[in-house]
């Protein structure tokens, strides 16, 4: 069977390595900026058309989204809280993408992580902070197991990790559904919940992530943890030997092998790290308080895993860009909360987000194609 590890993940191979042209540096920068602006404008315009066509007012929609995400008092704190798990998932995704692996099951890993956290967080007796830390660690373990299975299958049985991670997402969702139907697992005892509601027991007050208030905006300190982890990931991935080996494995598995990189160890390691981040994201979603009432519900993931995955891909695996993109995605989510007043369905935020991502994928691709064309024509005139 073909060696999947040789696959080009295009993201790592795009314009940075596109053929060099003799265009002036200023012209090239201007071209990039114009392209991005045009693409983003078209995306927003398309969404606006969508709103107008169904009888809404697009200016109201965009105003409401801005109000809901940043402008109104207290909202950017909420946005930060929502962005933190997105960022964590994105960080994990950056690690596995650098190793040339495609993990698209973050949603499932996040759900398993949150289930592990919920189980431990409710059952374990002890001082609150200690329970909280242990619960988060178990969240990490849960996510790591879920991604690790895919990694192990990839390296020991040659099963493409894209497919296993994709399929295991649904399995995770169903496992949580099963857990939420059994009191011995996750379901809260009948006394504390409305009849037939499939929810887990809420975390006790002292096992929740403490919240701080800055400038009138309240957010869980997990936001700071996420940013610290981002710096750590940047250090490891961009500034360390381990990160270099990961990149080598991702860009050319043969070279990596010949220079002594243990493909299995680094590949599975990257998957484990990726899953850990998703699992931790699940844990802080549960204990952070910006997603429901510190308890698991049937659709607990609410697409945060997918959002994080998209954030990492849009940021093209650059850590600091990922922080920014995660925040924008967080804005989409919190902004849609204000849409009800405008009479436009909150689902429009999904549309805007999808169009924005498509728009952000275009410029690098177009630039790459154009740079290649220029290089080709340059070589052909020379010959």
């Amino acid at each position, binding site marked *: *069977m073909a060696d999947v590890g040789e696959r080009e993940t295009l993201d790592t191979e795009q314009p940075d390595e596109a053929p060099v042209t003799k265009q002036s540096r200023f012209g090239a920068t201007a071209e990039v900026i114009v392209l991005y602006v045009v693409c983003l404008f078209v995306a927003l315009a398309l969404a606006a058309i969508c709103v107008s066509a169904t009888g809404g007012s697009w200016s109201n929609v965009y105003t409401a989204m801005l109000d809901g995400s940043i402008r109104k008092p207290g909202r950017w704190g909420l946005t930060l809280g929502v962005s933190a798990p997105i960022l964590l998932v994105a960080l994990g995704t950056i690690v596995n993408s650098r190793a040339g692996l495609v993990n698209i099951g973050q949603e499932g890993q996040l759900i398993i992580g949150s289930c592990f956290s919920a189980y431990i967080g409710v059952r374990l007796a002890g001082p609150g902070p200690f329970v909280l830390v242990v619960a988060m660690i178990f969240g990490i373990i849960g996510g790591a197991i879920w991604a690790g299975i895919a990694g192990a299958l990839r390296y020991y049985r040659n099963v493409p990790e894209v*497919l296993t991670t994709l399929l295991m997402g*649904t*399995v995770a969702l169903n496992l949580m*559904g099963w857990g939420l139907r059994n009191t011995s697992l996750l379901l809260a005892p009948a006394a504390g919940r409305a009849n037939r509601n499939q929810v887990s027991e809420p975390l006790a007050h002292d096992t929740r992530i403490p919240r701080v208030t800055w400038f009138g905006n309240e957010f869980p300190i997990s936001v700071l943890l996420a940013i610290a982890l981002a710096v750590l990931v940047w250090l490891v991935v961009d500034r360390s030997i381990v990160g270099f080996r990961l990149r080598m494995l991702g860009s050319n598995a043969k070279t990596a092998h010949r220079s002594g990189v243990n493909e299995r160890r680094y590949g599975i390691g990257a998957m484990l790290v990726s899953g850990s981040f998703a699992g931790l994201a699940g844990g802080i979603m549960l204990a952070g308080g910006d997603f429901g009432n510190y308890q698991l519900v049937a659709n607990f993931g609410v697409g945060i895993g997918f959002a994080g995955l998209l954030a990492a891909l849009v940021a093209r695996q650059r850590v600091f860009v990922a922080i920014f993109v995660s925040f924008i995605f967080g804005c989409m989510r919190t902004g849609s909360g204000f849409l009800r007043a405008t009479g436009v369905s909150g689902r429009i935020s999904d*549309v805007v987000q999808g169009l924005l991502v498509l728009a952000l994928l*275009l410029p690098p691709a177009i630039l790459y194609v154009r740079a290649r064309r220029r290089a080709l024509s340059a070589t052909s005139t020379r010959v």
Partner: protein
Amino acid sequence: MGNFFSALGDIATTESAYRNAVIAAAVLLFAACGELVAEKAGTINISLEAMMLAGSFSAAIGVHLTGSTWVGLLFAMLAGLIVAAIQANMSHRLPADQFVVGLVLNVLVLGLVGFLTGSIQPKSGVVRRVSVPVLSRIPLLGPALFDAPWVLYFIFPLVPLVWWLLYRTRWGLEIRAVGEDPNASDVSGLHVNRLRRQAIYFTGIVAGFGGGYFLFARAGKFEDSLIGGRGFIAIAAVIFGGWTLKGTVAGCVMFGLVGSFVLTIPSLGYKSIDSSFLAMAPNVITIIAMAVFAKRVRQPAALARPFIRGLK
């Protein structure tokens, strides 16, 4: 466990279980037939789900506007084609990553369809059953297969058509060549990315039609949860089938049966069997099958590898 087997026995003698299974298997099969062609050409087409969803939504719109199921089906194919055009041109004309594009399309179409359903609320209905004279009197399986909503019958010519396209036409040979060795195909004068785009267009049309079929055969009324991950199960069926048409059909039938279990078991009074395990069964089975057979089954050699001339 004994409980499970008695449930199994009950289901094997329940006619509605077969009906459910056939309807569920057919929607998977429509999508999987398309996906098989795309994967043979070397693309893992994650946006299958989006194609199906766009298909069934547009089918509902078509019926809502004109009242004709045929127009609905046409709309469904067009919508699938539009999604396919985005997927194909972004991943095989521009060098965007196919998984990224597919994932985004899934999110985008789900959002768009959800948004539009809220404001349009298309009206549509289940189509009538047409019964084939003699065949529909076969016990158990007969009514399920031959006394079905008429849109189902398109699946019978589709499977041979896909086989003929893939294995008996020049286009099919080129598609397979492009999926196995894009560099060699390129050198022998095939336009690799164009062929891959064409394969995805085919996928879009068939999957869109499948989405429309499912609306008319099962649901009647469109909801944005209608497809609910069936696209991913169809992808699983292709992989489970080891990238062969026979295997894909077998996979779809099996997953259709499992889907029908999930529906039928509670109505037969078996409350103790948790539906979660049945719902996840197709995926678990596929993963195990891949793990066991992955070394024996050969996927298209260039599966999921983009082709850019001059790169390796």
